[in-house]
């Protein structure tokens, strides 16, 4: 066997391990999702607690997967959409687990988080190629890692923020009417729980700002202009603006209840559009985009 053949079969072997590991992680995300649904339907804390413990297993295994991918590609593992989806699933899950530590016996936000994690993982595994490719010339920039890591960190935070917001909106009326415990939430902790959503959005906003700023600085170096109204750029600006409206509306007396909550959820939808939806939109409408390498 020649040197080249040895390298190729080694790469194929590592990839086969990686893909199977990713399937395994997706499976655990799926089980966690089902357990959270059981928690929702039965109102028992057991399935919720089990789901959280299993999610820890998935997240730790996912760290191994990301390290393996980094070793395979010899670069930061978020060049292709396959890699970004994996990174997104992991970052959203770990952010949720970090936040959830404070809220013992409140597991409902896990439903949205794990559904996104399993959805992103399955989309990557079933619809995208796992091939490891070298960095194309436009991506060979020190801005690349900063831009992607910070943008994805903000996405992860917004996912958890939105999950809490939705849980709050759904459950608040029943909790306010009745003193009975509803999924670990009661009159005493409901508002503090909801406040976490705002604090998370507040945390994510500067990260998103830096993500956009670093993207503009990078575009200025690579394409010669910092802003080109490219669909991906514009959707990131839409997301930023909607979250800016949300944060400001929290200071307006009349808006700080339901309207603010709706802006938070809208911001999350815009974030999904920036990440995935814009690719679909650009293909559907045939709009040219300089960000096609991420599609």
């Amino acid at each position, binding site marked *: 066997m020649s040197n080249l053949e040895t390298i190729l079969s080694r790469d194929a072997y590592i990839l086969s391990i990686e893909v199977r590991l990713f399937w395994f992680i997706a499976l655990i995300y799926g089980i966690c999702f089902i357990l959270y649904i059981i928690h929702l339907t039965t109102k028992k804390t057991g399935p919720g607690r089990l789901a959280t413990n299993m999610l820890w297993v998935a997240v730790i295994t996912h760290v191994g997967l990301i390290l393996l991918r980094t070793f395979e590609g010899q670069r930061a593992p978020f060049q292709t959409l396959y890699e970004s989806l994996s990174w997104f699933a992991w970052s959203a899950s770990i952010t949720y687990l970090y936040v959830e530590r404070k809220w013992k016996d409140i597991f409902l936000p896990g439903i949205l988080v794990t559904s996104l994690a399993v959805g992103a993982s399955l989309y990557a595994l079933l619809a995208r190629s796992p091939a490891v490719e070298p960095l194309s010339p*436009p991506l060979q920039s020190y801005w690349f890692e900063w831009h992607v890591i910070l943008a994805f960190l903000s996405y992860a935070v917004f996912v958890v923020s939105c999950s809490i917001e939705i849980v709050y909106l759904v459950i608040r009326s029943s909790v306010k009417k009745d003193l009975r415990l509803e999924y670990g939430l009661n009159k005493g902790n409901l508002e503090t729980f909801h406040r976490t959503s705002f604090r998370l959005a507040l945390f994510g906003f500067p990260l998103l700002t830096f993500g956009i700023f670093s993207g503009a600085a990078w575009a200025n170096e690579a394409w010669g202009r*910092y802003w080109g109204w490219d669909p991906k750029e514009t959707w990131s600006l839409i997301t930023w603006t909607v979250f800016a409206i949300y944060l400001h509306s929290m200071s307006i007396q009349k*808006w700080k209840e339901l309207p603010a909550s709706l802006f938070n959820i809208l911001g999350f939808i815009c974030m999904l559009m920036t990440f995935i939806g814009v690719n679909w939109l650009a293909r559907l409408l045939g709009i040219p985009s300089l960000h096609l390498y991420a599609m």
Partner: protein
Amino acid sequence: MTILQNIQNINWQGIRESKLYRRFASLKTSCILLCILVGFYTIGTIFPQDAQLDDYIKSGGRFISFVIFFDLLNIFNTPVFLIIAILLFINLVICTFERFLMLRSQNKTAAEDWQFTPAYTFPLDINQELESAEESVREIFKKELRFKEKASQTYGIYIMEKGWSYRWLTWAYHIAILFCFLGFLMTYLFSFEDEITLYPGEVAVIKPAAASRWNKSWGNSPQIFDFKLELAEFITEYNQLPKLEYPADKLSRLAFALGWKDPQYTLKEESYFPKDWKSRLKAIKGNMAVLEKTIEVNDPLSYQGITFYQAAYKQMLKIQVDDNPISFETETGKEIIIPGIDGMLKFGTIRIGTLFKKDGGMEKIRPFTEVTLVKKESSGKLAPDPPLYPLQGGDKGVGRGTETENIGKLEQDGAVYIDNKRISIKEFKEASILSYRYDPGVPLLWWSGIVVLLAMSFRVFGAWYRITYRIEEKDGASHLLIKVNTKGLIADEERLIKRLKHLLEKMTEPIDLDTPV
């Protein structure tokens, strides 16, 4: 002088109290304007921006009359959008100005600061006179907890603060956002850009085709620069890229997951993946090279305020058919009709330069191209135009009713045969396409952007505390009554109170205030 007097004579207070001004100073107005802008942005992602109307119609674009009426293909330059942006700018100016006045007045402690409802009460278990207890608590806050005294009143209320003022930080990043707006304005008015195509050894004058908006509005012609640009060398580099044999259908992928199949990498001879494009450029003044730099994507050359970027490359081919002395000139990627051949020929990118191999080695590439034969429908009917914006990286079809046949690899000294005709490369040349741009808004945006990020980060991630307290004697014992305000995500009221409690408990023993902490 008169102007200054006129400005001084304006009834500023009256303006500030007017309904319109108050509306512009409102946060609600900011939110509404931002909502309107979101609407514009969304439209901008639905309709292709900067596209020509004819092309839009040809590619099946809909709502033509709306597109024309609202100028939807150029929405970010429409007067309505610009007006909304200006209104937001005015709103931001007024809000930051009002905030500044408020912050300045807050330096003097307001009357309401002195009226507080304490959130915590601590018994001061010490046998000291009230004044001495006050002194001890004050020292705890100042020396142990590192608070700074902001104000105090003779009747015993103290206000202390710790950390950077969140109000000033908020104000600072809003001011920086205003400067960003000015940066955008400078870009809008004064920037211009163009492209230049250079073959190796070619020298060209930098003469942009279009002037900046500002110059255009004054009828000035585009600026000509007093230096020339020479392309000394153009370099292309490739990586060898193995192809992954992996199924596209979902069930087969599941088979991979279950270990029934294994992925495989195969390496074709033509598996090339672009690694880099480099242009060695010289800026020439008179007859002297004043600057030389090898630029690549992400590493441009700046000279006299203009920045040159590696944008793309262009390859021209001269094709010889049999021994015909007349050759056919074409550009790679474009179709050419050659008499005697049924269909059109298309030549792919000429691979030239250095190849970095998968096994770590490298080699000079023997120039070659891939030849494709494109045939239209046999009915003679022309196939519909290809999509206006063909997406890169994947779709290779050139439209329905078109058939493509891969003829094979054509090397520099080799030939391919089509319809008994011998096709060979007589000559080829490669040019570097450089884009260049003058944008005086960038430095302002760069610096104000950094201020936005820093101030916003300190505001959001930092910790700011304000405590208001007094010591009260009740039933013969002293009590500390305190209220805590915090801002910033790492500010932790609970921890502060815990630490304070601990320090107060320690106060049962007399504190040696002379020992530095």
